[in-house]
């Protein structure tokens, strides 16, 4: 068994078997992370560069930790403190890095499709760590891993994805993945934050009624309002958004069941998610972060196994 792809550009390109392989390998790495020595020598001769053209805390640290836990050599690149600020192009930067014999590139970029462009022009394997409003595949994988861990299944699971669907790469990757794995999806948010034709394009249910969606779902994946990607105001105020679509304990108390609360971080507390819910017993937000390292170890391990093929 191996992955059907040389890169991880998006969940869109993966087969169901690839996703299952990544999740089962991640479970083994999760065990490694409980050991006294939380490190294995698998990628001892692999060099990985983390190329971050956009800010990140969780994803960058999670990738770097995953790489170090696998004993890979790690190079870090942040666009703001590099020659990119002097006007060097993306392809030039990457080719210069690759001439230092790098095997894998983990990349985040504000332009959708940037990793796909690189994959066409360079020989190294590429892992997309988030590209614009397109995809964030490792986030979707760790979300799926966390859902499976908490509820015991993905197939047939009812998942509500709530909030800024329009600008969220997490939402798109999650929808692709859950669809492939046989979960049911309902998307919730104000009409201005939900793309037109989403129902037809991806086969998900769309509703504007938060209470109805929460009553229906097993898991609520709450997304961050991405103000930095909204060029024009799409709702009147953060306070109004919170009143209509914010997840509050009072809203959850009205349900006649318990649901699992997830959030990819960073949280805008008091906007899409109130603190009592984020820190409450049904939140698995910190488990998501913990699982992120194991899932990224699995992705890097499985891709490194293909670096000798050309």
């Amino acid at each position: 068994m191996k992955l059907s792809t040389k890169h991880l550009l998006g969940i869109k390109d993966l087969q169901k078997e690839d996703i299952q392989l990544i999740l089962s390998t991640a479970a083994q790495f999760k065990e490694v992370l409980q050991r006294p020595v939380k490190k294995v020598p698998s990628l001892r001769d692999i060099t990985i560069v983390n190329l971050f053209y956009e800010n990140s805390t969780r994803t960058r640290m999670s990738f770097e930790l995953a790489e170090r836990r696998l004993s890979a050599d790690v190079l870090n690149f942040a666009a703001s403190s590099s020659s990119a600020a002097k006007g060097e192009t993306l392809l030039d930067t990457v080719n210069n890095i690759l001439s230092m014999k790098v095997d894998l590139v983990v990349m985040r970029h504000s332009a959708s499709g940037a990793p796909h462009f690189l994959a066409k022009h360079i020989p190294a394997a590429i892992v997309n760590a988030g590209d614009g409003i397109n995809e964030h595949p490792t986030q979707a994988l760790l979300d799926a891993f966390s859902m499976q861990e908490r509820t015991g299944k993905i197939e047939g699971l009812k998942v509500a994805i709530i909030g800024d669907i329009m600008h969220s790469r997490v939402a798109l990757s999650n929808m692709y993945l859950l669809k492939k794995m046989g979960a049911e999806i309902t998307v919730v948010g104000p009409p201005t934050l939900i793309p037109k034709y989403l129902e037809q394009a991806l086969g998900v249910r769309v509703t504007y009624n938060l209470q109805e969606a929460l009553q229906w779902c097993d898991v609520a994946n709450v997304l961050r309002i991405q103000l930095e990607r909204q060029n024009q105001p799409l709702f009147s105020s953060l306070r109004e958004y919170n009143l209509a679509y914010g997840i509050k304990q009072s809203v959850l108390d009205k349900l006649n069941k318990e649901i699992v609360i997830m959030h990819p971080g960073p949280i805008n507390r008091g906007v899409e998610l109130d603190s009592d819910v984020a820190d409450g017993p049904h939140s698995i937000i910190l488990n998501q972060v913990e699982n992120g390292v194991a899932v990224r170890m699995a992705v890097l391990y499985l891709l490194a196994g293909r670096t000798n093929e050309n």
Partner: protein
Amino acid sequence: MDLSIQRLAHQMLENNQDLENTVIIGLQPRGIFLSDRIVAALKSIVPQQKIQYGRLDITFYRDDVRNSLHIANTTDIPFSIEGKSVILIDDVLYTGRTIRAALDALLDFGRPAKVSLCVLIDRRFSRELPIQPDFAGKAIDTIITDKVKVNWKEKDEKDEVVLV
């Protein structure tokens, strides 16, 4: 085969009279069939003793990730190996590379007082590393191109050792 397993269990008891400080660790995936049976045999010989038994997967410790991708199995060692006498169990000892990886993996769980090795089949003269078994069911002489496989009832319908 049953006879060999009984004999291996008795040999282990002779060398480790104090099972309190002994732990048994089977190697994934195919060493587990042998270790399951040895543990069952030990339990019937000394039913009053508590046997600490774990499973170790060495996939992430292999030295050939780039060349061939191996799929990991479960590791389950629910006790400390610190200061214990560890008996590693695998079905066939061939080049010794698996055991080399297993030793590395094992040491990441703690510092055992002693590690010994038990195998059902010892393929002499094909070693690539200086590793020898402490307990062996049977030693066989094969050339490097032969493949020796141990089949188990639990998985392959029949208990047998075949040369293919």
